[in-house]
């Protein structure tokens, strides 16, 4: 049985938003509509009990979301381009206060990372290198790599959790 409580739905919405953003980019003006459409189709399917494998709800939801994005792409290809006299404002650019806040948070996080650790993590997250190649390059064992990685993640997890709590308090 699916959990249809408000927090669960909000959690699903957050995850779907993440996926949609990944595929259509921050400049898309219809992100929230795509997420909403996915949720509507998903709950309709759930009510009609047409989801065969309820152990794989994530995969089913992913399929629904993929179709919604595909249909959206087809639709915008068919429809005429944006009227140049009335351009749609770009929602991808965050308000100035948010930008400043984000930059401060990034600077604060940075202070806590050693230069060597930062370079190792850059290899993994930004350059897409394999663990084995990184360990070879930095002459590290698997265990040492693990320590660097999870120490940094723990630090960011704390920062992230604190920020989420702060945002939640500000919203209420």
């Amino acid at each position, binding site marked *: 049985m699916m959990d249809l409580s408000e927090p669960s739905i909000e959690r*699903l919405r957050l995850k779907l938003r993440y996926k949609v953003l990944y595929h259509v980019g921050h400049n898309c003006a219809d992100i929230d509509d795509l997420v909403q459409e996915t949720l509507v189709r998903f709950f309709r399917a759930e009510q009609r009990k047409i989801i065969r494998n309820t152990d794989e709800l994530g995969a089913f939801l992913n399929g629904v979301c993929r179709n919604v994005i595909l249909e959206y792409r087809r639709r915008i290809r068919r429809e005429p381009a944006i009227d140049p006299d009335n351009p749609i404002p770009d929602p991808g650019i965050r308000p*100035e206060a948010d930008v400043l806040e984000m*930059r401060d948070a990034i600077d604060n996080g940075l202070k806590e990372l050693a230069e060597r650790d930062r370079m190792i*993590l850059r290899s993994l997250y930004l350059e897409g290198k394999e663990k084995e190649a990184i360990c070879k390059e930095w002459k590290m064992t698997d265990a040492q790599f693990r320590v660097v990685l999870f120490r940094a993640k723990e630090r960011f997890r704390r920062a992230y959790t604190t920020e989420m709590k702060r945002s939640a308090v500000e919203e209420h």
Partner: protein
Amino acid sequence: MDEGMVCKREPIEREQVIAKYLSRSLDAEAVEEFEGHYLGCDECFDELQVSERLAADLRASNLAWNQTEGVSVLRFKTNAELTHSAQELDELRREVLEQSDSRVIIDLSHVTRIDSAGLGQLMSCYSHLIKNRGALKVLNPAPEIRKLLDMTGLSTVIPTFQDEREALNSFKN
């Protein structure tokens, strides 16, 4: 690597899948599989969000930003190359083209090399800021960089300064 059921695997393997997803180096099938998984798995989604934050932090690591008198000043903290494959080029794009600042100074004092991609990026930044009714100024290029800016005619379009005060004052005119 099998990306399926990532949370059942070693944490370090899961992290590799997440890192590849974030750097967009997973193939389409693996992306589908991972997304299908995290949509149903809170633990993996939390890990993904934390890693994304970490990656964002790392991305911004070599480019410092500060605002003086309403002008954004961007400078590289350590030696940087503005070349085709350099991470710094991407950072610069993100900091100028994806932000709402319109009056920008780029301090090139730590830039040791620039190629056509770097020059093109400076030009894109300039066009973007002009379109937003702003301006771009360049500060402190090394002699060899200055020579390239002159040779390509970029210095006739993008004002170049050796002194930050002078560059900041130029926005008042």
